[in-house]
């Protein structure tokens, strides 16, 4: 079981997941329509690219956009959550051992206390997000069962991973559970809202181009997000 999950199944997961995300990016670009979107993407490409980069950078930076600055608490948690979500799996020592075995390469590994902390942040952040959805009327009204499902998918590998890590209960069981959750996580990327891991960049770039070309970029004013 372990061998299957970390062998063929893992490869398949990678292919479907990363292949799927690539397809989504390509489909997104192909689905842009200058007349329907009312943005002259081609004619003013350089303004567009400038706007796109600006738009992405402003929002990747916790103080880059007014939307972030006016909510420091949320922003802090949000960034930590995402950093944990992305960094931990890639730089975790245990994952790197597998990578070493499979491909003979490895990435710098996180010191374990840092990895633990990040994983905890993800879990706590996840709980916090659930509470936020329940507590605030303006978020509650938007929330659907699907939002919770996505959150559970996103956080489950961290919960199971931590349990295995601290060897609470049956280690073998929790390790397998962790691997399965991780693979579900990866497989969900292209097919669920988790696709925002790439579509965030696409959508931001698109609006950035809109601003860069039509909404002021060519008039020499860059909007201060």
């Amino acid at each position: 079981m372990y061998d299957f999950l970390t062998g063929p199944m893992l490869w398949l997961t990678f292919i479907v997941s990363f292949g799927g995300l690539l397809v989504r990016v390509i489909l997104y670009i192909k689905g842009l329509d200058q007349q329907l979107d009312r943005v002259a993407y081609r004619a003013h490409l350089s303004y567009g690219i400038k706007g796109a980069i600006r738009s992405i950078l402003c929002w990747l930076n916790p103080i880059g956009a007014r939307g972030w600055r006016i909510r420091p608490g949320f922003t802090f948690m949000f960034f930590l959550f995402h950093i944990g979500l992305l960094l931990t799996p890639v730089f975790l020592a245990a994952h790197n051992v597998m990578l070493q075995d499979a491909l003979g390469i490895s990435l710098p590994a996180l010191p374990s206390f840092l990895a633990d902390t990040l994983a905890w942040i993800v879990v706590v952040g996840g709980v916090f997000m659930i509470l936020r959805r329940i507590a605030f009327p303006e978020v509650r009204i938007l929330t659907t069962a699907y939002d919770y499902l996505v959150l559970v998918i996103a956080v489950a590998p961290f919960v199971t991973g931590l349990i295995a890590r601290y060897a609470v209960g049956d280690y073998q069981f929790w390790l397998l559970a962790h691997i399965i959750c991780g693979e579900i996580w990866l497989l969900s990327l292209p097919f669920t809202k988790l696709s925002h891991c790439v579509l965030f960049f696409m959508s931001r770039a698109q609006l950035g181009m809109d601003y860069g070309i039509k909404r002021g970029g060519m008039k020499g004013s860059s909007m201060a997000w």
Partner: protein
Amino acid sequence: MPEGKICNKQPINTVEQLQLTLADKSGIKYYEEMEHLDVDTDKLWASIQKTMKSRTKTWLEICAHCGLCAESCFLYQVNGKVPTQVPSYKIQSTLGEMVKRKGKVDNAFMRHAMEVAWSQCTCCNRCGMYCPHGIDVGVMFSYLRGLLYSQGFVPWELKIGSGMHRIYRAQMDVTQEDWVETCEWMAEETEEEWPGLEIPVDKKDADIMYTCNAREPKHYPEDIAEAAILFHVAGENWTVPSEGWEQTSLSMFAGDWECCKDNVQNVYNAIERLNPKRCIGTECGHAHRATVIEGPYWVGREDGLPPRPYIHYVEWLAEALRTGKLKIDPAKRIKEPVTLQDSCNYVRNHGLKMITREIIEYIVEPGYFVEMSPNREHNYCCGGGGGFNGIGKFRPQRNVALRKKMEQIIDTGAKLVIAPCHNCWDAIRDLEEEYHIGIRWSFLKPLIISMLEVPEHLKPKEEE
């Protein structure tokens, strides 16, 4: 009943139909008929599939339901922060639902969607600046309005408005004759005080072709006279076209995209015919958006630009003051607290935020200009945008919407508000009528004229 006599899926294309619809006071019969209007679900779904591409599709899908857009919407703020006014909710529960159900929605759904689309969003595009994913709900509401319009679910006034545009190519029943006569009449009236003043119609190869908002010839022709005075004093070589002079687009707010295209093409034809070096539009935000920002796409221009440089009135004014074509008498500068309304349609949608402030520097004594908060691209809609001002059915909601601007203005302590946008001007007038906060409001043209330093040779000869 599939289609009503007044409320139906056909756009108004004839004078008879227009009169029939107008005769139905406040649209009472129209809205009655709407309750029985069938939804052509196949057609609705077909057009969604054809026109809903990456952008809207992705936006609907990846919206994180995080609610960060809530606070950004002035309608959410002034309506007691009811969750149903959260931008994301408004669009997900209307367009989102329509897409989820693959267009299979009923009459009640469509009437509800109409109410949300025209009374809970002014397409001011502010929320788009606060969403991490760059989801611009205002853009999506424009799209939804198009779908609703094509099925006949559009407020009575906007059905009429777009009908006017279809028949007269103007937002009001101003014909070409009316327009040219108004220009002649205004030139005559003004010439006494401004010898040599002209409003040249259809002059070829002029430096400037001036276009305006049909409300001007219809309701305040002095605005045309004022434009003429300023061009006259600045010594500009200008003209107005006899056809293609109207640059507004109620059809844009109605969601009648076919009509939008026809109207803007009409203006562009005038440009080709008269061959001016550039065009200048009047002090109107949505007219600028229609003719300059979005219009090029409606007619399919690859570069997304009008056929000639086409600027907003504030751009010309700033230039004329900067280059000294117009000179302000320092003694006559504004010496009372004054504030400025940033029009979403040319500030947030075209970046013209500093240019109006440049004008302010010329006309307001230092220390008297008070910014609203927030301002520039973060400014709130006046409360009457997106057609909201004109829709009688939604007047109560509109009046609530005005409160945000009221608070902003009161906070500045200014009694004078400069509003270089017809629609904002109207909204601020209505807000004074509704709430009596004791303010005055003005376009730029009359203010500038009142403080001009007029060169000797342009003054009328003294007759003692």
